[in-house]
Protein backbone atom coordinates (compact mmCIF):
# COMPACT_ATOMS: atom_id res chain seq x y z
CA UNK A 1 0.00 0.00 0.00
CA UNK A 2 1.20 3.46 -0.83
CA UNK A 3 1.91 5.71 2.14
CA UNK A 4 -1.16 7.86 2.72
CA UNK A 5 -0.65 11.59 3.06
CA UNK A 6 -4.31 12.54 3.23
CA UNK A 7 -5.49 14.98 5.91
CA UNK A 8 -8.99 16.31 6.35
CA UNK A 9 -8.64 19.95 5.39
CA UNK A 10 -6.53 23.07 5.64
CA UNK A 11 -6.76 23.23 9.45
CA UNK A 12 -5.36 19.74 9.93
CA UNK A 13 -2.84 20.30 7.13
CA UNK A 14 -1.45 23.46 8.71
CA UNK A 15 -1.10 22.02 12.20
CA UNK A 16 2.35 22.88 13.51
CA UNK A 17 2.89 25.93 11.35
CA UNK A 18 4.25 28.57 13.71
CA UNK A 19 5.20 32.20 13.88
CA UNK A 20 8.76 32.87 12.74
CA UNK A 21 8.84 30.00 10.26
CA UNK A 22 10.16 30.12 6.71
CA UNK A 23 7.46 29.18 4.23
CA UNK A 24 7.50 28.53 0.50
CA UNK A 25 4.35 29.19 -1.51
CA UNK A 26 3.92 28.04 -5.09
CA UNK A 27 2.29 30.08 -7.82
CA UNK A 28 3.10 32.71 -10.43
CA UNK A 29 1.10 35.87 -9.87
CA UNK A 30 -2.26 34.51 -8.71
CA UNK A 31 -1.94 31.45 -10.95
CA UNK A 32 -1.50 28.18 -9.10
CA UNK A 33 -1.31 29.66 -5.60
CA UNK A 34 -2.32 27.62 -2.52
CA UNK A 35 -5.47 29.63 -1.82
CA UNK A 36 -6.90 27.46 0.92
CA UNK A 37 -3.63 27.24 2.83
CA UNK A 38 -3.16 31.02 2.67
CA UNK A 39 -6.67 31.50 4.04
CA UNK A 40 -5.80 29.11 6.87
CA UNK A 41 -2.59 31.01 7.66
CA UNK A 42 -4.67 34.19 7.95
CA UNK A 43 -7.05 32.40 10.36
CA UNK A 44 -4.14 31.02 12.39
CA UNK A 45 -2.68 34.52 12.80
CA UNK A 46 0.89 33.20 12.62
CA UNK A 47 3.33 36.12 12.42
CA UNK A 48 6.92 37.03 11.58
CA UNK A 49 6.86 34.74 8.59
CA UNK A 50 9.57 34.59 5.95
CA UNK A 51 7.77 33.84 2.70
CA UNK A 52 9.55 32.53 -0.38
CA UNK A 53 7.26 33.08 -3.34
CA UNK A 54 7.86 34.37 -6.84
CA UNK A 55 5.30 37.14 -6.33
CA UNK A 56 3.54 38.76 -3.39
CA UNK A 57 -0.03 38.52 -4.59
CA UNK A 58 -2.24 41.56 -5.09
CA UNK A 59 -3.59 43.86 -2.40
CA UNK A 60 -6.60 41.74 -1.54
CA UNK A 61 -5.68 38.24 -2.69
CA UNK A 62 -2.90 35.72 -2.47
CA UNK A 63 -0.04 36.73 -0.20
CA UNK A 64 -1.57 40.21 -0.11
CA UNK A 65 -3.95 38.82 2.52
CA UNK A 66 -1.02 37.99 4.81
CA UNK A 67 0.61 41.36 4.09
CA UNK A 68 -2.60 43.17 5.04
CA UNK A 69 -2.50 41.50 8.45
CA UNK A 70 1.22 42.22 8.80
CA UNK A 71 1.98 38.52 9.20
CA UNK A 72 5.02 38.62 6.93
CA UNK A 73 8.38 39.87 8.17
CA UNK A 74 10.42 39.06 5.08
CA UNK A 75 9.70 38.25 1.45
CA UNK A 76 12.03 36.40 -0.92
CA UNK A 77 10.65 36.99 -4.41
CA UNK A 78 11.54 37.92 -7.97
CA UNK A 79 8.71 40.28 -8.89
CA UNK A 80 6.37 42.17 -6.60
CA UNK A 81 5.06 44.86 -8.91
CA UNK A 82 1.38 44.05 -8.55
CA UNK A 83 1.00 44.83 -4.88
CA UNK A 84 0.80 48.41 -3.57
CA UNK A 85 0.57 47.37 0.08
CA UNK A 86 3.80 45.48 -0.42
CA UNK A 87 5.56 48.50 -1.86
CA UNK A 88 4.32 50.67 1.00
CA UNK A 89 5.54 48.27 3.70
CA UNK A 90 8.86 47.80 1.94
CA UNK A 91 9.59 51.48 1.35
CA UNK A 92 8.58 52.18 4.99
CA UNK A 93 11.08 49.58 6.12
CA UNK A 94 8.37 47.45 7.76
CA UNK A 95 9.01 44.56 5.40
CA UNK A 96 12.37 43.03 4.65
CA UNK A 97 12.69 42.09 0.99
CA UNK A 98 15.17 39.92 -0.86
CA UNK A 99 14.66 40.17 -4.61
CA UNK A 100 16.37 37.50 -6.67
CA UNK A 101 16.29 36.57 -10.34
CA UNK A 102 13.36 34.31 -11.20
CA UNK A 103 15.50 31.57 -12.71
CA UNK A 104 17.84 31.60 -9.72
CA UNK A 105 14.83 31.43 -7.40
CA UNK A 106 13.45 28.39 -9.22
CA UNK A 107 16.84 26.67 -9.33
CA UNK A 108 17.65 27.46 -5.71
CA UNK A 109 14.41 25.82 -4.61
CA UNK A 110 15.11 22.78 -6.77
CA UNK A 111 18.66 22.62 -5.36
CA UNK A 112 17.28 22.76 -1.82
CA UNK A 113 15.07 19.79 -2.54
CA UNK A 114 17.74 17.90 -4.48
CA UNK A 115 20.54 18.05 -1.91
CA UNK A 116 22.66 20.39 -4.00
CA UNK A 117 23.92 23.06 -1.60
CA UNK A 118 25.11 25.51 -4.25
CA UNK A 119 25.52 26.05 -8.00
CA UNK A 120 26.87 28.64 -10.42
CA UNK A 121 24.67 30.75 -12.67
CA UNK A 122 25.42 33.69 -14.96
CA UNK A 123 22.27 35.52 -13.78
CA UNK A 124 22.90 38.65 -11.81
CA UNK A 125 26.62 38.96 -12.47
CA UNK A 126 27.68 42.59 -12.27
CA UNK A 127 24.46 43.60 -10.49
CA UNK A 128 23.65 44.19 -6.83
CA UNK A 129 22.24 40.66 -6.73
CA UNK A 130 25.83 39.38 -6.85
CA UNK A 131 26.99 41.55 -3.93
CA UNK A 132 28.92 39.47 -1.43
CA UNK A 133 28.64 36.35 -3.55
CA UNK A 134 31.50 34.38 -5.03
CA UNK A 135 32.07 34.99 -8.74
CA UNK A 136 33.96 32.51 -10.89
CA UNK A 137 34.65 32.22 -14.60
CA UNK A 138 33.53 29.17 -16.50
CA UNK A 139 34.07 28.98 -20.26
CA UNK A 140 35.31 32.55 -20.16
CA UNK A 141 32.10 33.88 -18.65
CA UNK A 142 31.60 35.07 -15.08
CA UNK A 143 29.11 33.17 -12.93
CA UNK A 144 27.68 33.80 -9.47
CA UNK A 145 27.55 31.12 -6.77
CA UNK A 146 23.98 30.73 -5.53
CA UNK A 147 22.96 28.64 -2.54
CA UNK A 148 20.05 26.28 -2.04
CA UNK A 149 16.78 27.42 -0.49
CA UNK A 150 14.67 25.26 1.79
CA UNK A 151 11.61 25.96 3.92
CA UNK A 152 10.13 24.73 7.17
CA UNK A 153 6.88 24.28 5.29
CA UNK A 154 6.17 24.45 1.56
CA UNK A 155 2.63 25.06 0.34
CA UNK A 156 1.74 23.95 -3.16
CA UNK A 157 -1.46 23.79 -5.13
CA UNK A 158 -2.19 21.14 -7.73
CA UNK A 159 -5.02 20.27 -10.08
CA UNK A 160 -5.22 16.58 -9.22
CA UNK A 161 -3.59 14.57 -6.49
CA UNK A 162 -3.87 11.09 -5.04
CA UNK A 163 -3.68 9.51 -1.62
CA UNK A 164 0.07 8.93 -2.00
CA UNK A 165 0.67 12.65 -2.54
CA UNK A 166 1.37 12.35 -6.26
CA UNK A 167 0.45 15.62 -8.01
CA UNK A 168 -0.56 16.78 -11.49
CA UNK A 169 -0.68 20.50 -12.21
CA UNK A 170 -2.70 22.21 -14.89
CA UNK A 171 -1.16 24.31 -17.68
CA UNK A 172 0.89 27.26 -16.39
CA UNK A 173 -0.39 26.78 -12.84
CA UNK A 174 2.55 24.39 -12.49
CA UNK A 175 5.27 27.10 -12.33
CA UNK A 176 7.12 27.05 -8.98
CA UNK A 177 5.00 24.37 -7.33
CA UNK A 178 7.10 21.30 -8.22
CA UNK A 179 10.40 22.76 -7.00
CA UNK A 180 8.88 24.11 -3.80
CA UNK A 181 7.29 20.72 -3.14
CA UNK A 182 10.81 19.29 -3.20
CA UNK A 183 12.28 21.95 -0.91
CA UNK A 184 9.90 21.87 2.05
CA UNK A 185 10.87 19.99 5.20
CA UNK A 186 7.12 19.52 5.33
CA UNK A 187 5.23 19.97 2.09
CA UNK A 188 1.50 20.56 2.19
CA UNK A 189 -0.38 20.09 -1.07
CA UNK A 190 -3.91 21.31 -1.69
CA UNK A 191 -5.67 19.96 -4.75
CA UNK A 192 -8.78 20.71 -6.73
CA UNK A 193 -9.47 17.01 -7.02
CA UNK A 194 -8.24 14.37 -4.56
CA UNK A 195 -8.33 10.90 -6.07
CA UNK A 196 -7.89 7.41 -4.65
CA UNK A 197 -4.66 5.45 -4.90
CA UNK A 198 -3.94 4.30 -8.42
CA UNK A 199 -6.24 6.83 -10.09
CA UNK A 200 -3.37 8.79 -11.63
CA UNK A 201 -1.33 7.43 -14.52
CA UNK A 202 2.19 6.95 -13.07
CA UNK A 203 3.61 8.28 -16.34
CA UNK A 204 1.76 11.61 -16.09
CA UNK A 205 2.62 12.68 -12.55
CA UNK A 206 4.54 15.93 -12.19
CA UNK A 207 5.42 15.73 -8.48
CA UNK A 208 6.08 12.30 -6.97
CA UNK A 209 4.35 11.77 -3.62
CA UNK A 210 7.66 11.28 -1.81
CA UNK A 211 8.00 15.08 -1.81
CA UNK A 212 4.57 15.60 -0.20
CA UNK A 213 3.87 15.02 3.50
CA UNK A 214 0.21 16.16 3.64
CA UNK A 215 -2.46 16.46 1.00
CA UNK A 216 -6.00 17.77 1.22
CA UNK A 217 -8.98 18.52 -0.96
CA UNK A 218 -9.25 22.29 -1.33
CA UNK A 219 -12.59 24.09 -1.33
CA UNK A 220 -14.26 27.05 -2.99
CA UNK A 221 -11.43 27.95 -5.32
CA UNK A 222 -11.59 31.55 -6.46
CA UNK A 223 -8.75 31.26 -9.02
CA UNK A 224 -8.78 34.97 -9.63
CA UNK A 225 -7.45 36.29 -12.93
CA UNK A 226 -4.98 39.13 -12.65
CA UNK A 227 -5.00 40.43 -16.24
CA UNK A 228 -8.07 39.35 -18.15
CA UNK A 229 -6.97 39.81 -21.76
CA UNK A 230 -9.33 38.58 -24.46
CA UNK A 231 -10.14 38.95 -28.12
CA UNK A 232 -13.64 40.10 -28.94
CA UNK A 233 -15.97 37.36 -30.08
CA UNK A 234 -17.13 38.76 -33.37
CA UNK A 235 -18.15 37.31 -36.68
CA UNK A 236 -15.41 38.15 -39.08
CA UNK A 237 -16.60 39.53 -42.39
CA UNK A 238 -15.00 38.17 -45.50
CA UNK A 239 -13.57 41.22 -47.20
Amino acid sequence: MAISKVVKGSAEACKGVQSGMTLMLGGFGLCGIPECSIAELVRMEVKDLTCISNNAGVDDFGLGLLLQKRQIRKMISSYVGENDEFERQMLNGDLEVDLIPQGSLAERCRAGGAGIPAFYTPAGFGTEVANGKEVRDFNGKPHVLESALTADVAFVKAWKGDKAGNLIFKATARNFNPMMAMAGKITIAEVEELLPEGALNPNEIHTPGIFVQRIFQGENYDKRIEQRTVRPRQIESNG
Partner: protein
Amino acid sequence: MLDKNGIAQRIAQEVRDRWYVNLGIGIPTLVANYIPDGMDVEFQSENGILGMGPFPMDGDEDADLINAGKQTITAMPGAVYFDSATSFAMIRGQHVQLTVLGAMEVAQNGDIANWKIPGKMVKGMGGAMDLVASAENIIVAMMHTNRAGDSKLLKACSLPLTGVGCVKRVVTNLAVLDIQGGAFHLVERAPGVSVDEIIAATDGTLVVPDDVPEMQIS
Protein backbone atom coordinates in the same frame (compact mmCIF):
# COMPACT_ATOMS: atom_id res chain seq x y z
CA MET B 1 8.65 58.44 -35.67
CA LEU B 2 7.33 55.04 -34.64
CA ASP B 3 4.64 54.25 -32.13
CA LYS B 4 4.83 51.14 -29.94
CA ASN B 5 3.35 48.99 -32.66
CA GLY B 6 5.89 50.35 -35.13
CA ILE B 7 8.74 49.39 -32.84
CA ALA B 8 7.27 45.92 -32.51
CA GLN B 9 6.86 45.68 -36.27
CA ARG B 10 10.49 46.62 -36.87
CA ILE B 11 11.72 44.09 -34.30
CA ALA B 12 9.63 41.40 -35.97
CA GLN B 13 11.93 41.80 -38.99
CA GLU B 14 14.79 40.51 -36.84
CA VAL B 15 13.05 37.23 -36.14
CA ARG B 16 14.16 34.25 -38.21
CA ASP B 17 12.35 31.10 -39.24
CA ARG B 18 12.53 28.24 -36.68
CA TRP B 19 13.46 30.50 -33.77
CA TYR B 20 12.24 30.18 -30.21
CA VAL B 21 11.61 33.67 -28.90
CA ASN B 22 10.99 35.11 -25.43
CA LEU B 23 9.06 38.37 -25.44
CA GLY B 24 9.02 40.61 -22.38
CA ILE B 25 6.12 42.61 -21.01
CA GLY B 26 4.97 45.77 -22.86
CA ILE B 27 6.17 46.60 -26.38
CA PRO B 28 7.93 43.22 -26.79
CA THR B 29 4.63 41.38 -26.41
CA LEU B 30 3.37 43.19 -29.52
CA VAL B 31 6.11 41.66 -31.67
CA ALA B 32 4.08 38.45 -31.92
CA ASN B 33 1.47 40.31 -33.97
CA TYR B 34 3.93 41.02 -36.80
CA ILE B 35 5.52 37.65 -37.51
CA PRO B 36 5.00 36.96 -41.23
CA ASP B 37 2.64 34.17 -42.22
CA GLY B 38 4.47 30.98 -43.04
CA MET B 39 7.32 31.68 -40.67
CA ASP B 40 7.55 29.03 -37.95
CA VAL B 41 8.33 30.75 -34.69
CA GLU B 42 7.48 29.58 -31.18
CA PHE B 43 7.01 31.92 -28.26
CA GLN B 44 8.27 30.96 -24.84
CA SER B 45 6.86 32.58 -21.74
CA GLU B 46 9.07 32.03 -18.74
CA ASN B 47 6.23 31.15 -16.39
CA GLY B 48 6.00 27.83 -18.19
CA ILE B 49 4.74 27.59 -21.77
CA LEU B 50 6.24 27.07 -25.19
CA GLY B 51 3.90 27.65 -28.11
CA MET B 52 2.01 30.57 -26.66
CA GLY B 53 -0.93 31.68 -28.77
CA PRO B 54 -3.03 34.86 -28.90
CA PHE B 55 -5.41 36.08 -26.21
CA PRO B 56 -8.44 33.81 -25.76
CA MET B 57 -11.86 34.64 -27.17
CA ASP B 58 -13.99 36.53 -24.67
CA GLY B 59 -15.35 33.92 -22.26
CA ASP B 60 -12.70 31.31 -22.98
CA GLU B 61 -10.11 32.71 -20.58
CA ASP B 62 -8.60 30.23 -18.13
CA ALA B 63 -7.07 31.32 -14.82
CA ASP B 64 -4.58 28.46 -15.14
CA LEU B 65 -3.23 29.61 -18.50
CA ILE B 66 -1.36 32.91 -18.39
CA ASN B 67 1.85 34.43 -19.70
CA ALA B 68 4.67 36.05 -17.72
CA GLY B 69 2.73 39.34 -17.81
CA LYS B 70 -0.10 37.53 -15.97
CA GLN B 71 -2.33 37.97 -19.03
CA THR B 72 -4.74 35.21 -20.04
CA ILE B 73 -3.50 33.50 -23.19
CA THR B 74 -4.06 30.43 -25.34
CA ALA B 75 -1.83 27.53 -26.35
CA MET B 76 -1.05 26.69 -29.98
CA PRO B 77 -1.16 23.11 -31.28
CA GLY B 78 2.16 21.51 -30.31
CA ALA B 79 2.45 23.64 -27.18
CA VAL B 80 3.94 22.32 -23.96
CA TYR B 81 3.75 23.34 -20.30
CA PHE B 82 6.62 22.97 -17.83
CA ASP B 83 7.79 24.17 -14.44
CA SER B 84 9.86 27.30 -13.71
CA ALA B 85 13.14 25.40 -13.27
CA THR B 86 12.77 23.81 -16.70
CA SER B 87 11.76 27.14 -18.17
CA PHE B 88 14.95 28.80 -17.01
CA ALA B 89 16.94 25.75 -18.05
CA MET B 90 15.79 26.64 -21.58
CA ILE B 91 16.79 30.26 -21.09
CA ARG B 92 20.07 29.76 -19.23
CA GLY B 93 20.99 26.86 -21.49
CA GLN B 94 20.62 29.11 -24.56
CA HIS B 95 17.90 27.06 -26.18
CA VAL B 96 15.94 30.27 -26.83
CA GLN B 97 17.28 32.13 -29.86
CA LEU B 98 16.02 35.63 -29.18
CA THR B 99 15.01 37.71 -26.18
CA VAL B 100 13.17 40.99 -26.62
CA LEU B 101 12.67 43.14 -23.55
CA GLY B 102 12.07 46.68 -22.41
CA ALA B 103 14.47 48.91 -20.51
CA MET B 104 14.63 52.08 -18.46
CA GLU B 105 18.22 52.71 -19.51
CA VAL B 106 20.74 51.21 -21.91
CA ALA B 107 24.43 52.14 -21.84
CA GLN B 108 26.87 52.31 -24.74
CA ASN B 109 28.77 49.34 -23.30
CA GLY B 110 25.66 47.17 -23.49
CA ASP B 111 24.61 47.48 -19.84
CA ILE B 112 20.88 47.51 -19.18
CA ALA B 113 18.78 48.72 -16.24
CA ASN B 114 15.10 47.92 -15.98
CA TRP B 115 14.10 46.71 -12.54
CA LYS B 116 14.51 49.27 -9.82
CA ILE B 117 14.52 52.99 -9.03
CA PRO B 118 16.09 53.17 -5.57
CA GLY B 119 13.77 54.55 -2.91
CA LYS B 120 10.94 54.97 -5.40
CA MET B 121 10.02 51.93 -7.41
CA VAL B 122 10.96 48.36 -6.65
CA LYS B 123 9.09 45.90 -8.76
CA GLY B 124 11.82 43.29 -8.97
CA MET B 125 13.74 41.82 -11.86
CA GLY B 126 11.46 38.87 -12.52
CA GLY B 127 13.18 36.77 -15.16
CA ALA B 128 15.03 39.67 -16.78
CA MET B 129 18.40 39.04 -15.11
CA ASP B 130 18.41 35.40 -16.18
CA LEU B 131 17.36 36.37 -19.69
CA VAL B 132 19.98 39.06 -20.27
CA ALA B 133 22.78 37.05 -18.66
CA SER B 134 22.08 34.06 -20.88
CA ALA B 135 20.60 35.06 -24.22
CA GLU B 136 22.97 35.22 -27.17
CA ASN B 137 20.64 37.59 -28.93
CA ILE B 138 19.04 40.42 -26.98
CA ILE B 139 17.05 43.24 -28.51
CA VAL B 140 15.84 46.09 -26.34
CA ALA B 141 12.53 47.65 -27.32
CA MET B 142 11.90 51.08 -25.81
CA MET B 143 11.20 54.73 -26.36
CA HIS B 144 14.36 56.72 -27.13
CA THR B 145 13.66 59.17 -24.30
CA ASN B 146 11.75 59.01 -21.01
CA ARG B 147 8.68 61.04 -20.11
CA ALA B 148 10.84 63.94 -18.95
CA GLY B 149 12.46 63.99 -22.39
CA ASP B 150 15.80 62.64 -21.19
CA SER B 151 17.69 60.15 -23.30
CA LYS B 152 17.51 56.50 -22.28
CA LEU B 153 20.64 55.71 -24.33
CA LEU B 154 23.41 56.70 -21.96
CA LYS B 155 27.16 56.78 -21.52
CA ALA B 156 26.60 54.75 -18.37
CA CYS B 157 23.48 53.54 -16.61
CA SER B 158 22.51 55.50 -13.51
CA LEU B 159 20.04 52.95 -12.19
CA PRO B 160 20.87 49.55 -10.64
CA LEU B 161 21.87 47.20 -13.43
CA THR B 162 19.94 44.22 -14.72
CA GLY B 163 22.86 42.93 -16.77
CA VAL B 164 26.29 43.99 -17.95
CA GLY B 165 27.52 44.32 -21.53
CA CYS B 166 24.72 42.17 -22.89
CA VAL B 167 22.60 44.36 -25.18
CA LYS B 168 23.59 44.19 -28.84
CA ARG B 169 20.70 45.99 -30.54
CA VAL B 170 18.18 48.63 -29.51
CA VAL B 171 15.05 49.53 -31.43
CA THR B 172 13.37 52.78 -30.36
CA ASN B 173 10.67 55.06 -31.73
CA LEU B 174 13.48 56.96 -33.48
CA ALA B 175 16.07 54.45 -34.63
CA VAL B 176 17.72 51.07 -34.79
CA LEU B 177 21.09 51.12 -33.04
CA ASP B 178 23.78 48.50 -32.56
CA ILE B 179 26.11 48.44 -29.58
CA GLN B 180 29.69 47.71 -30.46
CA GLY B 181 33.11 48.68 -29.15
CA GLY B 182 31.63 50.82 -26.40
CA ALA B 183 29.41 53.01 -28.59
CA PHE B 184 25.98 53.16 -30.14
CA HIS B 185 26.06 52.73 -33.92
CA LEU B 186 23.16 54.21 -35.85
CA VAL B 187 21.81 51.58 -38.23
CA GLU B 188 18.44 52.91 -39.38
CA ARG B 189 16.25 55.98 -38.92
CA ALA B 190 12.53 55.71 -38.21
CA PRO B 191 10.35 57.05 -41.04
CA GLY B 192 10.44 60.85 -41.06
CA VAL B 193 13.12 61.11 -38.38
CA SER B 194 16.35 62.96 -39.17
CA VAL B 195 19.83 61.95 -38.08
CA ASP B 196 20.06 65.22 -36.15
CA GLU B 197 16.99 64.40 -34.12
CA ILE B 198 18.53 61.03 -33.18
CA ILE B 199 21.82 62.67 -32.24
CA ALA B 200 19.98 65.17 -30.07
CA ALA B 201 18.04 62.43 -28.30
CA THR B 202 21.07 60.24 -27.63
CA ASP B 203 23.20 60.91 -24.58
CA GLY B 204 25.77 58.16 -25.15
CA THR B 205 28.47 58.15 -27.81
CA LEU B 206 26.79 57.73 -31.18
CA VAL B 207 28.62 56.62 -34.29
CA VAL B 208 26.81 57.85 -37.41
CA PRO B 209 27.75 56.40 -40.80
CA ASP B 210 27.59 58.48 -43.96
CA ASP B 211 24.43 56.83 -45.09
CA VAL B 212 21.65 56.04 -42.61
CA PRO B 213 18.79 54.28 -44.39
CA GLU B 214 15.20 54.76 -43.32
CA MET B 215 13.46 51.72 -41.86
CA GLN B 216 11.34 49.74 -44.26
CA ILE B 217 8.05 49.31 -42.44
CA SER B 218 5.16 48.21 -44.60
